């Protein structure tokens, strides 16, 4: 092999490695994270009454691990639901959130809830209970129970303060099939009650948490999970996606153009300088 050929081989290899690095960087950035529910914007109406609508597939599911509620009494050391899959969509006016989880039996007392913080103050995920060194805010809870077949809009700021709002903005519908619950919650993105309801603006991340109750009864006829005995998650993130913003690509294209221009002028100047 001649020296020239060898150099050419090295040149190609280095160029290839460089391009691979750029592509690898892009792939890492595109990978989905499991810590946030992202609600893409859809045209047309939201599938508020249909947990099985085809349009749900346009939202990527985020899966959250669930724990038995061990944080405060009455505790439970084992809960039925261990994972919750969440999808969400919005149409610019309303938001729809689909919870999906495995539950071996359909029971009248099966229930699920979504929790948000209200306003700017941070709220503890366990019913917005008081914190010693931080002034907390209330939580907004969207609740659904199989036998009630409706959504309930609630607030809490500490244990024992759970209350149903006078104005109900949340709708919910559940569908059970093949050992799996699918429950859809819908609400306008914003409401006229910012003191009680979480307000969702597109593009911004807000906190979200979940709870699920298996309404199965044990041998003595007692509910297996009820009240504080449930499966819970701590805070994760939710975002109603803003309409796509392509400005980053425009700026990048402009920068590429400028860099090429800079190279062109530099090389031209160098060539002129050499010929002189």
């Amino acid at each position, binding site marked *: 092999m001649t020296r020239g050929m060898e150099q050419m081989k090295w040149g*190609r290899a280095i160029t290839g490695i460089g391009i691979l690095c750029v592509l690898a960087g892009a792939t890492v950035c595109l990978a989905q994270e499991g810590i946030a529910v992202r609600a893409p914007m859809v045209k047309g109406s939201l599938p508020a009454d249909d947990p099985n609508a085809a349009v749900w597939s346009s939202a990527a599911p985020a899966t959250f691990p669930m724990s038995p509620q061990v944080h405060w009494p009455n505790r439970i050391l084992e809960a039925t639901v261990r994972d919750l899959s969440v999808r969400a969509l919005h149409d610019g006016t309303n938001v729809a959130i689909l919870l999906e989880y495995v539950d071996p039996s359909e029971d009248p007392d099966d229930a699920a809830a979504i929790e948000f913080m209200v306003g700017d103050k*941070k709220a503890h995920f366990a019913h917005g209970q008081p*914190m*010693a060194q931080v002034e907390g805010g209330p939580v907004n809870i969207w609740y659904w129970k199989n036998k009630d077949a409706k959504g309930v809009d609630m607030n809490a700021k500490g244990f024992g303060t759970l209350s149903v709002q006078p104005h109900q903005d949340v709708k919910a519908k559940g569908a059970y099939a093949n050992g799996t619950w699918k429950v859809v919650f819908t609400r306008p993105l914003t409401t006229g009650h910012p003191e009680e309801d979480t307000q969702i603006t597109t*593009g911004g991340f807000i906190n979200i948490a979940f709870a699920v109750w298996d309404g199965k009864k044990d041998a003595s006829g007692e509910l297996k999970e009820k009240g504080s005995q449930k499966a819970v998650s*701590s805070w994760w993130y939710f975002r109603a996606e803003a309409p796509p913003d392509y400005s980053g690509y425009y700026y990048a294209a402009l920068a*590429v153009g400028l860099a090429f221009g800079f190279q062109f002028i530099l*090389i031209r100047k160098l060539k002129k300088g050499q010929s002189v």
Partner: protein
Amino acid sequence: MGGSLLKPVILIGIVYTILKFVVPNIPGSAPLPASLIFLYLMLTTSGIVIFATLSGESKDAFWGPIQRFLTGENIGSLQVLRYGVLLLFPLIVGWQTYHSTATSDAPPAENRTIHPAPPGEYTGLSNPVAKTPDTIQQGKGFYAAFCSPCHGGKFDGKGPAARGFNPPPANFSDPTTIAMLQESYLFWRIKKGGVGLPIEGMPWKSAMPRWEVELPDEWIWKIIMGEYDGAHQSPRTWE
């Protein structure tokens, strides 16, 4: 070509190796942040450029090969590498620009302080319970009943109830948790729980119960002894 450029490249390589691999191993030293290494390499490069351009001859010897490479005159088979560099440079500039202007798709970064400062009244308290095999055993029993669902029977933070919580329950066998803390710190954390944390500890996320409403202080002190013993760690002391 290349002879006059080889020395600077080797020099930069040596400086990088020293900063990255030698400095952190000097006793009492620590790994340097990437930004600081970058700054030092920039200073080295500036120094090389100033040194190389001191005289007319050295300037030509230094810039000559770079100019020839960029203009592509008489560089033979390096032409391929030249095209690669000329193509890659604008792409990298574009990529950097995209990342600095595009709206972030990631949730807000959380700089949670894992071990924030305790309130004054909890610093320096010593365990009032005598450390005997009996009391340690009692502590382990309380631990098994109240703590192990999350912190795990093996003290590793992997209890059956841990999975849904973010931040995850502390792993006591990890040398960066209780081994770095005094017993009085654990007493505060167990007694006041997650909601007792200051703002930098993000109390709204913590699932740690406020055990003061359920357990007497004496039990908490015993749990602390059981925890250290079970996790094969010792509390930090000032000696």
